[in-house]
């Protein structure tokens, strides 16, 4: 029985880690109908940038480095929206999907030429100790990121439900044209969405980067996150955070 619970909890933790990526997908899909292939690459880039600020090129304190990374992701959001998506407004979603494919190549290439191709360790000072509770091993690292994910999701829900801009973003995702007709500037809304997705990608990049090292494979996590996304619902932001499914899946896999 303890084994069962351990598997369940472990699965839950894995699920939360994946849901961080899935969240970014869902956000962008919802706000701009774009299936963002570059989500993984964004995480990669954020991780690389953070390593650059923290260990590689500069040695900034963690909070400043995080802030700078978010700044970098904001610039990316600007570039993507105004250079890539703006000329493609109202094109079929497939074209936008393809454009993000190009963005993926761009980000990977630029990221790796600036920061190099080796796997880099990322240490943000969260201890990866494990302790035992009732025969079940838990990792402080996992718990920390579960907490971060919870705060992030709560924050996003608050933002989307309660603030003016959040409401505007939801409006945009429901109906672009009607949103335009009540005076919500579409590009600004997209820009905002991509910034948020950039922040989510940063968190995901940090979480996965500390675990795996910051390296190219972060770009592939996105594919692994797809099942989470589909089960949770491609267009649902709370849905992206349904890691329970992951837990159940790993239980089933073990028992078979």
């Amino acid at each position: 029985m303890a084994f069962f619970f351990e598997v369940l909890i472990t699965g839950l933790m894995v699920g939360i880690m994946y849901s961080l990526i899935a969240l970014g997908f869902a956000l962008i899909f919802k706000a701009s109908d774009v299936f963002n292939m570059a989500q993984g690459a964004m995480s990669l880039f954020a991780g690389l940038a953070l390593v650059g600020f923290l260990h590689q090129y500069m040695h900034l304190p963690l909070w400043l480095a995080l802030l700078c990374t978010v700044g970098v992701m904001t610039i990316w959001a600007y570039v993507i929206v105004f250079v890539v998506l703006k000329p493609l407004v109202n094109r079929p979603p497939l074209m936008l999907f393809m454009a993000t494919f190009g963005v993926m190549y761009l980000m990977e290439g630029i990221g790796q030429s600036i920061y190099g191709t080796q796997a880099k360790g990322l240490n943000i000072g969260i201890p990866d100790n494990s302790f035992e509770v009732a025969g079940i091993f838990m990792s402080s690292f996992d718990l920390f990121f579960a907490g971060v994910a919870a705060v992030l999701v709560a924050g996003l829900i608050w933002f989307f439900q309660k603030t003016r801009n959040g409401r505007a973003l939801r409006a945009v995702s429901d109906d672009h044209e009607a949103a335009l007709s009540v005076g919500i500037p579409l590009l600004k809304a997209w820009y905002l969405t991509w910034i948020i997705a950039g922040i989510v990608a940063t968190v995901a990049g940090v979480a996965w980067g500390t675990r795996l090292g910051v390296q190219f494979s972060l770009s592939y996590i996105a594919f692994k996150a797809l099942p989470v996304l589909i089960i949770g619902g491609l267009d649902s932001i709370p849905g992206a955070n349904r890691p329970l499914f992951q837990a159940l899946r790993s239980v089933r896999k073990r028992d078979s």
Partner: protein
Amino acid sequence: MGRKLSFTIFALVLVASFILSSGQAMASEEKKPEQFVGLLAYRTGPFAAGGSGLTSGKEDFMALINMRGGINGKIMYKWEECETAYNAARGVECYNRFKNKMFKVHPESTGITYALIPKATKDKIVVISSGYGRADASDGRVFPWVFTIPTNYWSQNTAKIKWIAMQEGWDGKDMSTIGKYLKGLKIANLHIDVPYGQETKPILDAMAKKFGFKVRHFPVPWPGIDQKAQWMDIVRRFKADWVINRNWGVSCTVPLKEAARLKFPSNRILGVWWCGAEEDVLPAGPAAKGYYSTNFHGVGRDFPIIKEVVDKVYGAMKGNISFTRVGSVYYNRGFVAAIVDHEAILTAHKKFGVKVLTGEEFRWGMEHLNITKERIKEIGAEGLMQPLKTSCADHEGGGMVFFQQWDGKKWVSTGDVITPMRKFVRGMIEKSAAKYAKEKGITPRTCK
């Protein structure tokens, strides 16, 4: 619309000029005798750390030889890189691009090796797969053009089992007593679930049967970023004594973290040599301390020849990789491969005279390699590489496996250099090669 059109035409012209300029670049002529080496590299993609190290190591060695005045003082190395991105189709394209000028090829990927073996056999170009590719290609009678110098996966795994037995108290000499120490041991073979990862399953199973230990295979789906479930199984259910970490790229790092989380001792994990580089353990941080891995060459810069590279090549700012990575595992691996090839060239020069070699002449050199301890000392690579002696039938040469441990900062050799169970492996190799020969309708050549 018109503006768009002209824009596009402009872009097309740009692309066309790109292609044209590339043609011109290819046409540039060489002046003195040059031995051309085509390098299949992968500097992008998930395994870029490996590819950049391997390629740059070779390039640095060749740069050093050129600075010394060339091969036998007469012939210069000339090399060109081609990015494969670890993709077989692109690897084939690179091979075809170089094939008229080159005499040997390091495919640097198991997939590309498979694609190139029949082609290179036809084109009379030597394929050297150091520590990857087909294990059964060590049989030179069936694979005359393929070399698995200095060792292959199957040899490695028998050495691993021997080493594990030694850790359990075996003296390392008397093969008849090894079974006593292995009996009842539980060894988990954690492998990435692609053909590369599955390759060692038969030899492990065969050994388990022979020596009476228990082996279970735990496949990790590609790319192996999350292995929580496998580790739960290994530690909680299987209760493994030893774990063989047979992964690649990021999936090498994950087990260390998972093991630490489940309090599985890291010094009971033994990695394949593709899981034994700095890039594999650094991201795991303290969790990696104590982790063992195999290797087939030494690590670090503490060898005369690498010091010479540091002085001469990097002193002249002609290095091919960031200076910090000189002496790292992948770098040294590429470097050692280049030394071996160089020795083969020298051997061939003895027979055919000092000239630009063809593939056939080079193969002769490869088959008559005899790198003795003394010669290694002469090269200045003592401890960096192992003695090698190849023959017409034996395309593996040494087969020796080095063991190293991560001390938290760098790889430290444990001092164990273990000879694999050569007879055992050879039997399996010959069986597998014979099967291949039968399938392909090859009559194995006879070696005297």
